């Protein structure tokens, strides 16, 4: 049997891999920028040089990470037009606006103030220099907001009409205040803060294990826990509320995520199941369920009704014509569970860390320190699974209800061209990932240099580059 690989398949594969890869670097920047800003602020207000050392130490990690985020972000902007020209022409009027605003309002801010922060230690007053890191943080958050606005319009197209086969913007206010965008934005920045908190905490754990710089990193661990424990908990709630929003606008996505073929009410939440993922096999051969939980998660009520895929499919056929409107069920089901389980684990690790910290046993509990290091990976796993859920769950649509993915690619681009670009980007991204990982690991293990001492990158500009 041969499987015909279409240009759409390849373009999707490229978009999925490059976007997920890009999003390995985004959340850490979103979270680490404000955390470094907080560290520098504590130093500025109290004069405790330990916080300055920490700000510079984690600032270096942020820079290594930021570079590759910027580099891979370029691919994101270009590939809409390169691989998805019909999509680009269809959505440009609406989708292009937040992208252009992102560049004008956020990218300039981020990049300019990052340069000022790196090189400005001895050129700006302490106060002005502190402002640059905060403006950098504002820039990263603004950038996240506008790109989420663009993505949310694909999930729930508002503020636009289709005129002559193209979407046209009718209300920028509706576009920006999309309920979907607001909740997705909160979810993403909280993911960023959680990712950064877990990284700071994990790096601190490593130093405790080695018995090095314990006093210094205890401060970092405390800050990480103060941020990580409440934020990871709140984000579980925000994520679940985003589920309610999705239920309103993308019932098929929720039904597929829960492998719910028939409409139910009250609905139980499936924790784990074998089988039940395809049209021919709608009943799982084994599952573990919690009664009422799905109703609660999807509708905010004890007995709420959740539409099944079979019913939504019938509705969509009546509305949009014949076709299969069911997204890949197994992928959405498992990506939601990986996201939620990893997210819950993050909270548990952080909470246990806080408990040990209060008991003053943190630096001596070796098994937990190893757990803390391993837990650096959890927010990443959770975030990637979340994007997979969000984008795969929208299929077969590229813009919900308006344009199908299968009709959106570039007619002038053939399979061999996309193979070439996939191969080139895979090689390049693979190499970058290895270098990035090696550098991050090396710099995370260094002893934070004394301020102005040997190895302090920021104090002696000659070493800066």
């Amino acid at each position, binding site marked *: 049997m041969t499987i015909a690989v279409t240009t759409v398949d390849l373009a999707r594969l490229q978009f999925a891999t490059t976007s997920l890869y890009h999003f390995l670097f985004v959340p850490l920047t979103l979270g680490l920028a404000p955390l470094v800003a907080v560290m520098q602020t504590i130093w500025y207000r109290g004069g405790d040089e330990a916080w300055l050392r920490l700000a510079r130490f984690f600032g270096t990690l942020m820079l290594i990470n930021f570079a590759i985020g910027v580099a891979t972000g370029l691919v994101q902007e270009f590939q809409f037009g390169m691989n998805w020209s019909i999509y680009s022409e269809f959505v440009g009027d609406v989708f292009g606006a937040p992208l252009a605003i992102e560049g004008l309002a956020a990218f300039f801010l981020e990049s*300019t103030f990052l340069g000022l922060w790196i090189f400005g230690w001895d050129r700006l007053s302490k106060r002005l220099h502190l402002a640059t890191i905060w403006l950098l943080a504002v820039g990263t958050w603004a950038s996240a907001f506008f790109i989420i606005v663009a993505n949310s319009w694909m999930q729930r197209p508002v503020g636009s009409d289709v005129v002559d086969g193209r979407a046209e913007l009718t209300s920028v206010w509706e576009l920006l205040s999309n309920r979907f965008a607001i909740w997705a934005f909160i979810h993403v920045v909280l993911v960023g803060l959680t990712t950064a908190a877990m990284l700071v905490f994990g790096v601190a754990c490593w130093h405790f294990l080695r018995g090095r710089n314990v006093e210094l990193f205890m401060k970092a661990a405390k800050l990480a826990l103060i941020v990580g424990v409440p934020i990871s908990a709140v984000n579980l709630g925000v994520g679940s509320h985003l589920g309610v929003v999705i239920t309103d606008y993308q019932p098929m996505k929720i039904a597929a995520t829960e492998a719910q073929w028939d409409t139910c009410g009250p609905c139980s939440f499936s924790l784990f199941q074998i089988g039940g993922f395809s049209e021919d096999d709608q009943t799982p051969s084994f599952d573990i369920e919690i009664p009422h939980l799905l109703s609660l998660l999807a509708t905010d009520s004890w007995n709420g009704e959740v539409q099944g895929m079979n019913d939504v499919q019938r509705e969509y056929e009546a509305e949009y014509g014949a076709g299969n409107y069911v997204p890949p069920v197994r992928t959405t089901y498992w990506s939601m569970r990986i996201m939620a389980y990893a997210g819950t684990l993050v909270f548990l690790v952080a909470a246990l860390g806080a408990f040990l910290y209060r008991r003053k046993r943190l630096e001596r509990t070796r098994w937990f320190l190893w757990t803390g290091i391993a837990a650096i990976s959890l927010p990443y796993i959770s975030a990637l699974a979340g994007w997979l859920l969000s984008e795969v769950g929208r299929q077969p649509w590229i813009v919900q209800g308006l344009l199908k993915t299968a009709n959106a690619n570039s*007619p002038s681009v053939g399979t061999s061209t996309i193979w070439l670009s996939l191969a080139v980007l895979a090689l390049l991204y693979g190499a970058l990932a290895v270098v990035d990982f090696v550098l991050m690991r090396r710099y995370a293990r260094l002893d934070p240099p004394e301020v102005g001492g040997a190895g302090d990158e920021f104090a002696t500009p000659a070493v*800066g580059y």
Partner: protein
Amino acid sequence: MDLETLWFCLIVILWAGYFLLEGFDFGVGMLLPFLPRGEEDRQTMLRAIGPVWDGNEVWLIVAGGATFAAFPAWYATMFSGFYVALLLVLVFLIVRVVSFEWRSKSETPGWRSLWTWANTIGSAGAALVWGVGLSCLVYGVPIDSDGDYAGDFWDLFNAYTVFAGVTVVLLFAFHGATFLTLRTVGELRDRAEHAARRLALPAAVLAAAFLVWTVVVAMDRNDKELFPPVLPAALGIVALGLAVVFLFAGRTGRAFAMTGLATVSVVATLFVSLYPRVMVSNPDFANSLTVDDAASSHYALAVMSVVALIFVPVVLAYQGWTYYVFRRRLGGEASEPEKAEVASA
């Protein structure tokens, strides 16, 4: 002026800003293996553009975003049509971006040398492809009646567009060298001035020839009159001549202003030659994309105009302030007579 034309002008300004600012970053990158005596000088060169190169690159990202938003059909046809060329640009820009941050992260000479060359090849390669790509818009590429690109990668190359690519590389190297004479002191500054003098004539002659050729191409292949494309082209030729004169007179500050003006004139000449089309079709001229065909709705353009009106001045203010903050020259100590000479430049 209607909003479509306004946004065409805004995109020209974004490309011009990108060429003006990232142009000298690219130039510094190209000179990186050749100009300095040793590692210390090389770091000084990188620090001369260190605080600003990232912000300069955003001009490109915004140009791309603005094209997507204001002229979706242009963005769609150009980006899908110039596929392999843009893939090349991405590779060049990516290795260059990471080279800045990663080069300093290890002391071994092999590592340093790797990222030096990554920066150089990335800078020269991106400049070359932008020259070829932008000149293709005026020269014309095959476009079908649906407005889709109908050629392949090799259709982008002909004598004119290759000449454009080489011109842009050389012009950026010249621009970068004059930039370094303003941002450094001591021996490095002297070497930069020496490099600028060696690059001056070839760059000026090539760029002047390219400007003339562009006007000819516009009249020949894009149905343009001599006016207005001849205006920015003439301005560019004057600027190039003055850049050479100022440089050999030792007035490096003015020479830099003139290489900047010449760079902007190249972009202006290309786009003035292009208007009111955004992509010329060849051989079927009737399939050319025009500003009006490709533009977004009036409402979308109006919204973005308001956004641009608010943010562009703010961006210009803080980017300008950055150059003011980092105005101090870098490198070894300058001698007293040198300081006097530098002050008069």
